[in-house]
């Protein structure tokens, strides 16, 4: 394992010394999101001639453990799907490895549960746990770092948060955008 990691670092260092040809499209998936949240996702990004790029991502969450934590555990929200358009600005000059800043919006849909106090016909109140669905729109920002391997494969770290603006009673306040993605450039 240690040798493999060293080999990876050597390959990466060697590869980082030359500037590869710019490829204008990238397709990628967030491996961290899939493993940790059960979120199956795909993003496509297009680079402009300048420092900007833009793209669209989407994910569907299918996780038995997340579902169980929502249904019977202490999780109040269950994300179901999201569509995330984004714009990025490259902060470094290198083509092979660079930092970037991102602004994104996220149309997100999920389930929520809350304790509600309802009054029956006899004017007696009863507390109960009630589940509902929400769809909201978030705006947010992220910071990331990307580097290329063998000119076509991209590895990307991303950390960001957005704030939901619609259906704020049901939807989560914060939409996180954290990822470790593997991509292919063409």
């Amino acid at each position, binding site marked *: 394992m240690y040798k493999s990691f060293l080999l990876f670092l050597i390959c990466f260092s060697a590869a980082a010394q030359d500037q590869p040809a710019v490829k204008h499209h990238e397709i990628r998936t967030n491996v961290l999101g899939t493993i940790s949240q059960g979120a199956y996702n795909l993003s496509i990004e297009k680079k402009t001639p300048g420092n900007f790029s833009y793209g669209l991502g989407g994910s569907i969450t299918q996780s038995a453990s997340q579902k169980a934590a929502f249904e019977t555990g202490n999780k109040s929200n269950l994300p179901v799907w999201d569509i995330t358009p984004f714009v990025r600005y490259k902060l470094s000059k290198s083509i092979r490895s660079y930092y970037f*800043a991102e602004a994104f919006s996220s149309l997100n849909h999920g389930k929520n549960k809350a304790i509600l106090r309802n009054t029956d016909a006899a004017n007696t*109140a009863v507390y109960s746990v009630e589940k509902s669905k929400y769809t909201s729109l978030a705006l947010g920002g992220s910071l990331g770092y990307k580097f290329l391997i063998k000119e076509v494969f991209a590895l990307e770290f991303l950390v960001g948060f957005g*704030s939901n603006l619609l259906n704020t009673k049901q939807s989560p306040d914060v939409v996180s955008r954290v990822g470790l993605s593997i991509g292919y450039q063409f």
Partner: protein
Amino acid sequence: MKKIQYIGFALLSFVLLVACSNKDSEFFNEVTIQVPNQLVIDTQSSYTIQDTLWLHTAFSRYLPEENYSNLLDVYQSSGQATGFQFAFILEKKAANGTWEFYPLSTNLIEELGDVQEYNGYYTGYSVYNQTAKTYDFRSGLKLTETGEYRINFGYESLINQAVIFRSNSQANNLVVNIRSKVAALDASGYYSFMVN
């Protein structure tokens, strides 16, 4: 390079600002209401050996709740809980002046509901009475030794001079907590008494 730092700082600030306000993710399957005087200590002006100190509850399943005009049905809210549990501690002052847990063992009288002695505390259990629609408990502490005693109901007692009743809700039903001020407790959260 400076531009990168400024943009990075601005974005990081935004991220931290947004992340600081989050009502999300954690869900606690319980509610807490406040209703005073639902547990009564039958106090006496003085106690002698063989006297019994009685604790009792008989609270309705329909309880008033702060800020609401209608009554709350705690029986339905708790998924038809068959009882509410609470804890208490009886201590006796030792010869060296320290307070020590006082085990009653056979001198703990169970009349209504259930009472248990554990290592360092007691639990009481108010059971649901289908006919009266109340949660009933009555237990006696038979006092067989002279000395200085005190009772408290744990953390809530010491902070709020109250007892917490917790519903024994089954499966995934909501747990209802009733925080109830106990009239007999002093400002420190104890009911202190002397047995002569």
